[in-house]
C-alpha cells in the first residue's frame, strides 16, 4: 500500500520552502518591529508612579529649576532622581495633609527610599553620559521633550541607536547656546546652520568620530 502519492513530493518541497519563508518573515517582522517607533512601547506612554508627582505643576506652574531635583545632570553621567529629603524641603510645610504625599512622608520618617518606576531605560550595552551633552549644548528638551508639560513623565523620543546617531552625525543641527539648555519651547533660529557651526567651535566639539562604535559601546 502506498501512503504517499507521488504528488506529495511537491507538497513536501513547497512546505519546506514555505516554512523557511515564514521563518524569515517572522524574524524580519520582529526585527523591524523592534526598531519601529510605534512598538517602542516606552515612547509616548506615561509611566505610573508610586506618587503622582507632576512636572507640569512643579516645573511649569511653580517654575522650579530642573537643577533643584536633577542637579547632577550638569556634570555627571546620571541625572539622578531626587531623594525624599528634597521633596520634604518644601513638603514639610506645603500640602502637609495631602494624601497623595503620604508615601513621601512615610519614606522620610522610615528612611526607606521611594521606588520610582524608570521611564527611560537604555540597553545595558550602551554607555550614556548627561554631563557631556548638557555641557555641549544639548538641551533637556531635545532628548526628553516637553517634560515641563507632563503630569506624568513619558519617553518622548525613541532612543534607538539611529536616533542617537542622527545627532552624532550632525550635532550642528541640534545644539543650542549654553543659556538655553533648560529652555522649554525653544525655537531654533532660522540661521541654525550658521549658529550651529559657531557653537561647534565655541564648545570645541569635533563631530568627526562621534559616530564611532566605541563612543557608546565601551
Amino acid at each position: 500500500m502506498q501512503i504517499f502519492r507521488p504528488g506529495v513530493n511537491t507538497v513536501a518541497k513547497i512546505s519546506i520552502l514555505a516554512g523557511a519563508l515564514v521563518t524569515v518573515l517572522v524574524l524580519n517582522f520582529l526585527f523591524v518591529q523592534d526598531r519601529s517607533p510605534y512598538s517602542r512601547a516606552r515612547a509616548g506612554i506615561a509611566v505610573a508612579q508610586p506618587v503622582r508627582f507632576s512636572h507640569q505643576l512643579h516645573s511649569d506652574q511653580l517654575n522650579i529649576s530642573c537643577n533643584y531635583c536633577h542637579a547632577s545632570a550638569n556634570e555627571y553621567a546620571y541625572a539622578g532622581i531626587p531623594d525624599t529629603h528634597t521633596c520634604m524641603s518644601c513638603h514639610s510645610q506645603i500640602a502637609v495633609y495631602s494624601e497623595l504625599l503620604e508615601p513621601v512622608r512615610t519614606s522620610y520618617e522610615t528612611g526607606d527610599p521611594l521606588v520610582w518606576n524608570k521611564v527611560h531605560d537604555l540597553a545595558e550595552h550602551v554607555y550614556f553620559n548627561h554631563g557631556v551633552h548638557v555641557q555641549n549644548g544639548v538641551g533637556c528638551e531635545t532628548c526628553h521633550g516637553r517634560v515641563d508639560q507632563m503630569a506624568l513623565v513619558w519617553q518622548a523620543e525613541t532612543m534607538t541607536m539611529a536616533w542617537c546617531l542622527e545627532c552624532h552625525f550632525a550635532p550642528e543641527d541640534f545644539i543650542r547656546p549654553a543659556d538655553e539648555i533648560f529652555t522649554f519651547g525653544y525655537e531654533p533660529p532660522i540661521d541654525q546652520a550658521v549658529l550651529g557651526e559657531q557653537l561647534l567651535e565655541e564648545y570645541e566639539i569635533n563631530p568627526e568620530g562621534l559616530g564611532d562604535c566605541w563612543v557608546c559601546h565601551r
Partner: protein
Amino acid sequence: MLTPKSSNRLVLVVLAAFSVLLLASCMNMEEQPKLDEPYVFDPNFGTAWRELDPNAIPRGWERDDTLMFLGTVDGEFVNDFPMDVDRELIAEGQVQYESFCTPCHGFAGYGDGILNEEGFPPPASYHTDELRAQPAGYYFDVISNGRGNMLGYGARIEPADRWAIVAYIRALQYSQYQVLDELPPDLQAESGLLNQ
C-alpha cells in the same frame, strides 16, 4: 638569582594572574553595573554599593580645612572665603542660587519667592542690617545644614558651589544697599539720584 624552581613558580604566578584577568574579561557587556537598583550585584564583592562604615572618610572628604567645609576658624564663623571671589565665582553662584534658593528667597533675596503664595513661611530678607552683618561663614552654614523651617542643602550642593552662592548673596546685598557717595562718579551720575 632565579633558581630553576623559583622560575617555575614565577611562571605559575604569571599564569595564575593571567587567568584571573581572563576571568575578569568574561564579565559580559550586557551585565555592566548600572543604576538600576540601589545595590548592584558585583561578583567580586557581593554588592558594589554598600553602606559606608560610619568612621570611614571617603577620599576627598577630609574635613581638616574648617573654613572650606564649615565656614569656621577656631570654631567661630568668619567673614572670609576659602577661595578668591571673582566674577566667575559670582556668576556660578547666580546659577546655583537661581536653581535652589529663588523658590523661597526670591530673585533679589527679599524673601518673596513663589512658594510664599503656596503657604511656605517666608524667610527674612537678606537686605536688613542684621543679615548684612552676618559673616560669610554663617551663610555657608545655613546652606549646608538649614535653619528653622529651611532644610539643609549640604547633600546636594558641593562645598565650592555653596561658597559661590554666598558670594552671590553678598553681590545681591551690595546691589540693594549702596551709599551713593561711595559709588564711582560715572555710576553716581547714571543712578539719576544726584540732583534730587
